[in-house]
């Protein structure tokens, strides 16, 4: 019996994008099974759409807020609808988020020239280095690792939500936006958590391919990787802005 007996009995939701469809692998034909190649190629397609969207957002920054809202809605639809529909919603999510990120980057660039390419470089640098660490076994995700990351991610989400709601009443949680030592430390922590979520994405895709999940899970894996990359990019951009404003 595992020491995680409560988890064995009741399971755990973890990232909601991961908790579905790992049971129906029995009747999937070989040609219809998820592969690593497929998941990587679909991630490349989503990244290309995101870059295409960013080009539009860069040139028409007024689209930032509407596209951010539509992208967020599409993300929730993809997570909470059946994963088999991810192939239909994930490309639109990537394109709309791309437009939003393009607009956000323009605003950041106007204040701090050159910050956009730094954030992009660091985001993909972290992606490649963590992929190497995962593939080589330097970082080994376990149940405790997932529990720790899930708790931290939810904590950050709730903190941001409270801060967002408080902002309507002319108040807010000051330190998370400040450029003081505490604010920078908080941003570093959030970047770390976002980066470690990439490891969970890699493990999800790796095990999905190993277990021969249905082909559509390639889109789902690519989508979850995109969600984490978008979050990581925004957090790195925020961190760099705080550092440059000092």
């Amino acid at each position, binding site marked *: *019996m595992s020491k995680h007996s409560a*988890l*064995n*009995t*009741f*399971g*755990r939701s973890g990232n909601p994008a*991961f*908790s579905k469809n*790992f*049971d129906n692998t029995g009747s999937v034909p070989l040609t219809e099974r998820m592969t*690593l*190649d497929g*998941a*990587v190629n679909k*991630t*490349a397609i989503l*990244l290309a759409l995101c870059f295409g969207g960013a080009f539009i957002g860069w040139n028409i920054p007024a689209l930032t807020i509407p596209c951010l809202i539509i992208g967020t809605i599409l993300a929730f639809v993809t997570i909470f609808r059946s994963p088999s529909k991810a192939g239909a919603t994930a490309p639109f999510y990537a394109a709309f988020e791309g437009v939003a990120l393009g607009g956000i980057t323009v605003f950041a660039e106007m204040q701090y020239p*050159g910050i956009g*390419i*730094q954030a*992009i*470089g*660091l985001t*993909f*640098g972290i*992606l*490649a*280095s963590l*992929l*190497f660490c*995962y*593939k*080589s*076994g330097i970082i*080994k*995700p*376990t*149940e405790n*690792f*997932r529990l720790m990351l899930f708790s931290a991610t939810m904590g950050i989400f709730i903190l941001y939500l409270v801060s967002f709601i408080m902002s309507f009443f002319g108040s807010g949680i000051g330190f998370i936006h400040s450029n003081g030592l505490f604010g920078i430390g908080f941003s570093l922590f959030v970047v770390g958590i976002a980066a470690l979520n990439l490891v*969970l994405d*890699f*493990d*999800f895709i*790796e*095990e*999905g391919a*190993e*277990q021969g999940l249905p082909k559509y899970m390639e889109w789902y894996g690519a989508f979850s990787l995109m969600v984490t990359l978008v979050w990581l990019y925004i957090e790195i951009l925020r961190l760099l802005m705080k550092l440059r404003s000092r």
Partner: protein
Amino acid sequence: MNTIFFGLLTVLSLFIFMNLGKVKASKKQMDRDDRIKWGRNRRSNLGKNRRSSEIIEGEAKEVDEKSKD
């Protein structure tokens, strides 16, 4: 200089991702007992617990003093 350095970093990282991503993870990573079991759900685990419980399946028989001898 800033653009060249971070631009190169982006291209190199994407190249690494596209190639390394298609390679299977090392045995050190895959052959572990403490791997995350993504497929773990309530139903299958309740089934697993039931199998390992102390219940013995079979037909119930009444035992009287005569058959004991």
